[in-house]
């Protein structure tokens, strides 16, 4: 009997979540899902021969900047970046677009899917601008997506923590995520952005410094939000951009932040930028402290990290960390954009060029690689460039090669500032990633950390997001140009050409909360916001292909480990 099954026959399958490590297998697809092989006598309607090819789940980028007001502002403030780069030409099926370090919306979708990535999350959207982010995500084709909601400097959050009203926070946080149709709470320089708004060059130096007006500390914000998010049972409880990003000696802040999780599940993002030793005199003392931090991660199961590699070249820094944007502008003398999102967050944007002859930049590059090589369990470290902050997501294949080929890594190490080898231990790390481990840190791991049960694996019930590579000795070449990319069971990319630019889903959460809280929030809005309470939430009908990811409430003990 011939059916509408699609069968990918005889590829080397990498599916670490289901314990498959390069065995030759068939993958059966029905509609948009992977299914069990049907019984004997059932023939697939279409069979694609995968013999000799490597078959993996579609890539999952859990931390990038692809939509929302800061991304769009970066596009506008860097026309020169786009003018110098290639253009994405219009075809009968695809839109035209521009590249540069911040590609246009359609181009982002095409480039991600062309790279074999089928899911991506924007890491920092002010809830007040969520509507804008959703509009852009709708124009980002081919991939599933979602975004994290900035909460670490939200005035209501800080007030409830200062007033020691955890129940109110437990009502507000799910309301906010549901109102923004966001996926997870994001903490960016918690408390520090608020201090920046109050003082010239203001920021916090430690997580125990008091934030103006609200009289709370970053530690209290981190602990309060993390505990609440875990209690709500969010699929990805908290996503934390620590205080003091990029500052020499910031590793102690990072350690303290991990401690402030109090054993609850939490994710520390672009940890490379938070792993520095040294003091005020940057050039003299700046060094890697990745080892100490990785030791902590290796011994504390509640912490996961993504790396935030930098790669050499020109890019655009964009962040909800307002004081960081100002710092970069002063260091590099480049143009700068700063924004204050009322009651909620800040923003800083500045162009940046990472140079291999710069000791600081070269060390940043090395520290990123150290992280992959020092964390023992690949399920708890995720590949990211904080695109575009460290580099474009298009640099992932090169990072894969650096991880899988130690001789290549050492060759590149010889081309960077010579002092780097004395300031970090990268030269001593001989570990080489396997294809299975690459599969974990680029798709299976991030999907698991995000709580996406249907992503990152090829078992029955999984979304049929599949990337097929032609094996090559040079892993950069192998991962740059997938032979096929299937999204939701549809062959979207074949030989680098987009065949069917379908529209992906938007993931968000819709957690329950005590409706009584709405009275307090409404009063708060009427008092302080420039927008009416009733106009703030994004209506269900606003999203085009939404998918709600369930929250699973845990009791206090089960959400804590170590």
């Amino acid at each position, binding site marked *: 009997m011939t059916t509408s099954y699609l069968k990918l026959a005889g590829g080397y399958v990498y599916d670490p979540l289901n314990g498959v490590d390069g065995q030759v297998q068939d993958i059966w697809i029905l509609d948009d899902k992977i299914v069990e092989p049907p019984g004997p006598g059932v023939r697939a309607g279409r069979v694609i021969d995968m013999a000799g090819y490597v078959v993996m789940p579609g890539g999952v980028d859990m931390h990038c900047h692809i939509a929302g007001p800061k991304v769009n502002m970066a596009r506008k*403030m*860097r*026309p*020169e*970046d786009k*003018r110098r780069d290639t253009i994405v030409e219009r075809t009968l099926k695809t839109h035209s677009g521009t590249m540069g370090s911040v590609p246009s919306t359609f181009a982002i979708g095409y480039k991600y899917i062309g790279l074999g990535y089928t899911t991506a999350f924007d890491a920092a959207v002010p809830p007040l601008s969520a509507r804008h982010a959703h509009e852009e995500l709708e124009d980002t084709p081919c991939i599933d997506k979602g975004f994290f909601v900035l909460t670490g400097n939200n005035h209501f959050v800080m007030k409830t923590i200062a007033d020691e009203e955890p129940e109110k926070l437990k009502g507000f946080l799910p309301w906010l995520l549901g109102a923004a149709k966001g996926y997870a709470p994001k903490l960016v320089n918690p408390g520090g952005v608020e201090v920046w708004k109050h003082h010239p060059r203001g920021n916090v130096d430690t997580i125990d410094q008091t934030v103006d007006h609200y009289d709370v500390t970053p530690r209290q914000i981190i602990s309060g939000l993390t505990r609440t998010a875990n209690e709500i049972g969010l699929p990805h409880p908290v996503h934390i951009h620590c205080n003091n990003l990029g500052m020499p000696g910031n590793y102690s802040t990072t350690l303290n932040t991990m401690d402030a999780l109090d054993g609850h599940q939490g994710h520390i993002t672009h940890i490379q930028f938070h792993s520095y030793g040294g003091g005020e005199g940057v050039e003299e003392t700046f060094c890697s402290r990745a080892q100490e931090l990785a030791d902590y991660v290796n011994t504390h199961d509640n912490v996961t990290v993504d790396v935030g590699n930098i790669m050499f070249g020109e890019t655009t820094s964009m962040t909800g960390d307002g004081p960081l944007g100002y710092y970069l502008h002063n260091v590099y003398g*480049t143009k700068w954009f700063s924004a204050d999102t009322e009651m909620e967050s800040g923003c800083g944007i500045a162009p940046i060029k990472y140079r291999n002859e710069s000791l600081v930049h070269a060390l940043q590059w090395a520290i990123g690689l150290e992280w992959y090589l020092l964390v023992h369990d690949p399920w708890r470290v995720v590949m990211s460039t904080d695109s575009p902050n460290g580099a474009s997501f298009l640099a992932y294949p090169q990072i894969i090669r650096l991880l899988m080929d130690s001789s290549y890594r050492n060759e590149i190490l010889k081309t960077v500032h010579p002092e780097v080898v004395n300031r970090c231990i990268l030269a001593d790390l001989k570990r080489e990633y396997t294809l299975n481990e690459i599969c974990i840190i680029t798709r299976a791991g991030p999907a698991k950390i995000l709580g996406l049960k249907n992503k990152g694996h090829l078992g029955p019930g999984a979304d049929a997001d599949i990337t097929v590579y032609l094996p090559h000795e040079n892993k950069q070449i192998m991962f740059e140009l997938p032979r096929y990319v299937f999204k939701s069971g549809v062959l979207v990319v074949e030989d680098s050409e987009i065949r069917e630019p379908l529209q992906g889903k938007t993931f968000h959460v819709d957690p329950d909360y005590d409706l009584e809280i709405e009275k307090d929030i409404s009063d708060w809005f009427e008092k302080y916001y420039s927008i009416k309470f009733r106009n703030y939430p994004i209506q269900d009908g606003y999203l085009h292909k939404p998918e709600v990811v369930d929250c699973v409430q845990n009791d206090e003990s089960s959400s804590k480990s170590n």
Partner: protein
Amino acid sequence: MALELTYHGNTNIPVEIEGITPDILQPLSLAEIEQLRVFHGKDKCVLADFFKITGDASDLEMHLSGQLTGVHWIGTKMQCGSITINGNCGRHLGSEMRGGSITVNGDAGDWIGAEMKGGLIHVHGNAGHQVGAAYRGSERGMNRGTIIVDGDAGNEIGLTMRRGLIVIGGNAGDLIGFNMLAGTIMVFGSSGIRHGAGMRRGTIVFMGDDQPQLLPSFRQAVKYQPEFMRVVLRKLVKNGFVVPEETLNASYNLYHGDMIDGGRGEILLRA
């Protein structure tokens, strides 16, 4: 024998001929040149749709003629050779060019020599705005080379320029040398307002009788006869520019500025 391109287009929609430069055309046959891609608005066309093409490109010499005011990006990114335009031409003439020379026997539009990195552009008529400027967002404008406009020009001449020489024989508009990083701009006629605003280094010289009022962030230093002026004027004469007699041995009032950005730039007003 030069390559002759005679414009026969009849359209109000911009025609963009980026990439049609002597160095690119030199190895090509006439048939190949005719099929080179140009844009008519958003539509892709070929060069022969708009130009009658004769002659030979091998000697790196191109002549363009006809009503070329709607033809843009002539000589963009050219590396060497020469282009002569008989008539008026459009915007972005010689932008980002690195070498060679462009002569316009007529007027040119905006953005001529924008971000150029070498070579010579000589417009015998007038030019538009943003001569030798940086494109919006760029860190640097013109960065080597020479632009001579015998007639008038518009606003923002030498915007964020880094190196090179711009000479305007007639009048100019506002904001000459705005955010200038280095280089030299000379204006022989009258001009508008707010010149040198935000300039860090570089020299702006006003040679005319009608001197502009400078911003209060410029401070007078001295009156003198700069040695370099003779060298520059000799170069201009060599390039066929008519230098007014009264400027040859003139003295100048030197002003330093812009004081809001370091004050290392200079504006010279002919005394």
